[in-house]
């Protein structure tokens, strides 16, 4: 029968640490989640950054190409051809150091293309219009026209810019939208440039962008109006998706934004899944370890219990086996007694009978003990005259006691019958007498006294032996306990006699105690009325 306390203890041993750890882990995971989310956010932002930088690099490369093309131009007449050959250039221009536009030269005949170019770029040459340089992260504050003295005659904003830089971009608004110019300063102080077609620029950028996103997300490029220019990556953006990372692009694409979209739990999918599984693994390893230890404990503790039970079972079994032959011995000895006349023979037979009775008692004790362990003890209460019971037991002991030079004296009376189990009663008295016989033979006398009052009946067994130390008065009743001193050594005994006697006494509603005594042991069995 599994020990409930043990099971509880072991369960606690396993669950408590797991519980505590789990609670901690959950807490730390929540914190870690927040940390990871920030980390992931930063990663996405960085990835978006890199993509934006990639676009920037493409544009810078194109600017470099245009720069070289402009470098090769020696005089304004070459510009028309140069613009035709430059894929990104819609038109070209040459502004000399005194702010005269040498190409397109309005004093000459101009094609329609050239004419419309002059019209839409008016604000660049006048210098009176504000140049839109806002939004470009790399353009330092000193670039804004307002910080310069404006309205110097014939001074284009472009020339003023050219004093500070070698080359650059200028976006400006005209009618249908944003237009773009790339310019560079020539050694002569003139400014050459191309009007750049933003659509063509976008096409070049698209050509340089990748098609897949290793993060299974999607990059979306939008213009200053929020219209979609391009997307790549594969993830299908749904209308209510918000970007996981976003930023504005630098000059000359300022106003354009690059946003990164992905599944909203992308960060979780990426990070915490592995985190969580790692956690779970650690957790379960610990759990298994603890469980293993608990099981080992269990096995160990139940082993001794098991072994003990096995031993008890064995003894029980043996005792049962012994009972039958013993009964036969007693029976035949009794029968034989009727047949024998000779006194000597009868005496020998008596010894056989009393010894086999002793054996019987021992077996009964053991069986009682084991039955008690198994909770199978049952008592048949009857109306008993104690005097008779005592006398019966004393008679049984008479011969063996005589052999040791002892005798039992019965005193007192118990006229009123008591409700007791006769076998148990006999067992109690027999155990007490047996002890006295074993240990108090030197005292020569064992007195069994009966006392009876209206409220209780008492049976006392006292001897004149060495007695039992007062401090051991409880311990002697422990099963298997035998006082270890020279007295017990060499004396056969199981050590369960008193334990049985007390158990039986308790079971019948009474008590069995060691009473104080000057000399010898004094056991008192008190039976309430």
């Amino acid at each position: 029968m599994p020990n409930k306390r043990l099971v509880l203890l072991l369960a606690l041993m396993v669950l408590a640490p797991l519980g505590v750890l789990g609670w901690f882990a959950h807490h730390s995971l929540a914190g870690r989640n927040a940390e990871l989310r920030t980390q992931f956010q930063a990663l996405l932002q960085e990835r978006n950054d890199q993509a934006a930088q990639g676009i920037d690099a493409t544009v810078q490369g194109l600017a470099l190409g245009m720069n070289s093309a402009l470098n090769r131009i020696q005089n304004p007449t070459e510009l028309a051809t140069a613009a035709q050959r430059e894929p990104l250039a819609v038109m070209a221009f040459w502004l000399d150091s005194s702010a005269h536009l040498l190409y397109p030269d309005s004093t000459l005949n101009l094609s329609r293309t050239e004419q419309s170019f002059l019209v839409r770029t008016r604000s660049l040459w006048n210098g009176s219009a504000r140049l839109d340089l806002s939004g470009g992260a790399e353009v330092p504050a000193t670039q804004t026209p307002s910080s310069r003295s404006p309205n110097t005659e014939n001074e284009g904003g472009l020339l003023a810019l050219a004093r500070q830089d070698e080359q650059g971009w200028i976006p400006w608004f005209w009618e249908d939208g944003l237009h773009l110019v790339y310019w560079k300063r020539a050694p002569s102080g003139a400014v050459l440039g191309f009007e750049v077609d933003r659509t063509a620029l976008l096409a070049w950028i698209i050509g340089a962008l990748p098609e897949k996103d290793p993060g299974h997300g999607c990059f979306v490029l939008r213009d200053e109006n929020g219209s979609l220019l391009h997307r790549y990556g594969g993830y299908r953006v749904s209308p209510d998706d918000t970007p996981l990372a976003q930023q504005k692009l630098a000059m000359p694409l300022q106003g354009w934004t690059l946003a990164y979209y992905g599944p909203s739990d992308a960060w979780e999918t990426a990070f915490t899944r592995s985190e969580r599984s790692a956690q779970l693994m650690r957790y379960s390893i610990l759990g298994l370890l603890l469980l293993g230890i608990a099981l080992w404990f269990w096995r160990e503790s139940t082993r001794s219990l098991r072994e003990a039970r096995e031993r008890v079972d064995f003894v029980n079994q043996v005792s049962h086996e012994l009972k039958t032959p013993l009964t036969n011995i007693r029976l035949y000895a009794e029968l034989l007694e009727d047949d024998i006349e000779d006194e000597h023979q009868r005496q020998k037979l008596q010894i056989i009978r009393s010894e086999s009775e002793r054996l019987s008692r021992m077996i009964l004790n053991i069986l009682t003990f084991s039955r008690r362990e198994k909770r199978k003890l049952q008592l048949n209460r009857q109306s008993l005259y104690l005097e008779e019971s005592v006398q019966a037991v004393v008679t049984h002991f008479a011969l063996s006691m005589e052999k040791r030079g002892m005798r039992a004296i019965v005193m007192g009376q118990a006229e009123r019958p008591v409700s007791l189990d006769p076998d148990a009663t006999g067992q109690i008295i027999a155990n007490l007498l047996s002890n006295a016989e074993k240990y108090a033979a030197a005292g020569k006398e064992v007195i069994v006294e009966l006392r009876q009052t209206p409220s209780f009946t008492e049976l006392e067994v006292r001897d004149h032996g060495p007695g039992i130390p007062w401090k051991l008065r409880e311990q002697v009743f422990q099963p298997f306990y035998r006082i270890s001193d020279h007295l017990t050594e060499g004396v056969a005994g199981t050590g369960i006699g008193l334990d049985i006697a007390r158990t039986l006494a308790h079971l019948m509603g009474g008590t069995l105690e060691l009473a104080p005594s000057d000399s010898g042991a004094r056991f008192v069995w008190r039976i309430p009325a």
Partner: protein
Amino acid sequence: MFRNTIFLVAVAAIAQLSAAVTLQVNSANPVLLEKRTQTTLVQLNLVGAEPADQGKQRMPVNLAVVVDESGSMGGDRIERAKEAARTVVSMLGPQDVFSLVAYSDEAITLVPATKMTDRSAAYAAIERIEAAGSTALFAGVSKGLSEVRKFHERNRVNRVVLLSDGMANVGPSSPGELASLGRAAGREGISVTTIGLGLGYNEDLMSQLAMASDGNHAFVENSVDLARVFEQELGGVLSVVAQRIQINIQCPSGVRPLRVLDQNADIRGQNVQLNYNQIYGRQNKSVLLEVEVTGKREGEQMELAQVQVLYDDPASKRRETQQGKTAVRFTASEATVRREVYKPALVEAAKAKTNIASKKALELRDKGDLVGAGAVMRATVDSLQVQAVQYDAPELAEESKAAEQEAQTLSAPAPASEMNKSRKELKARQYERSSKFSIQKSK
């Protein structure tokens, strides 16, 4: 000295014969009225030479095919498109470069620019085309251009062929934006041919993209015809005899260039400049410059125009020049003027003017003014009939009949679907008339 002259003439003739492009310059009216200010035409005719033997001396090709794989292409259309792509690949040789871009929600490069030494990978990639999604046309063309750029050489024919059946709806989608892209491609020397499939695409977008880059444009109503059209396009590409053509026309004082009929040109005072990406083998490209002439006195002569044509010649791998000029003389007799008229120029002019009228009429029809559209076309019809009689030119009568048919189409009220279809047909036909090259007519 006489021998020298003959020698030089012979050399010139031989040079002309073996030239990739032959230039002829004519005046529509070799004789003009004296003293009066009148309008006449200078006609240039650029004739492409016979294309070289296949696989031997022809220019290697650098081709990107950009295929629409949006949802609407599902079923028969995408299968036919794949078939057309396979046809194209089968016509390429180991010295040619091929790339394949497919676009729906996004543009994906299925075959990055590769030499066709082994075509199996290309065929395998064509099989991966699947129809689903929207139409990122701009991205598709951009990617196609980017692939062509990888092997971009002056000695190759660099081309993008775009197939689309629907409205662009991802990224820049207006005709103006795609025209900008086309112009940029043209500046790079990459022509974009646009093939519109079915009745759902934007013909303005497709034709403007092609026009800006000097590609071809076709309207394919039924996907069954796709393979054939692709084949014709590639046939044209394989037949290219000259690239990066620049035409410079210089008029002396007294001759004022007004406009070039039905073509894009830069007119700066006395100078006219036109640019074309390529001349196809056997192509007759006619350029008509309308000029205003202040008449001299009878008997006097005047040069009308000096023409210089520059082009890249794949055979010599050099930039070659052709020159030509034309002059007029003056008379007092109107009859002489009429008699001496150069009919081929008139016929070409008639075609060009019909096309201009057709475009104008279509604009009016778009606004709902069917009457006005009809009127514009019929004015041309009448004028052609008059000219046919005036110059005794039955060819003009033929032109007049064709113009009459078109007048009917343009002025007849019809349900929206009919109008849509006829608009696409008209746009495609107008385009071919301007570009002087067809990939739809079976040869």
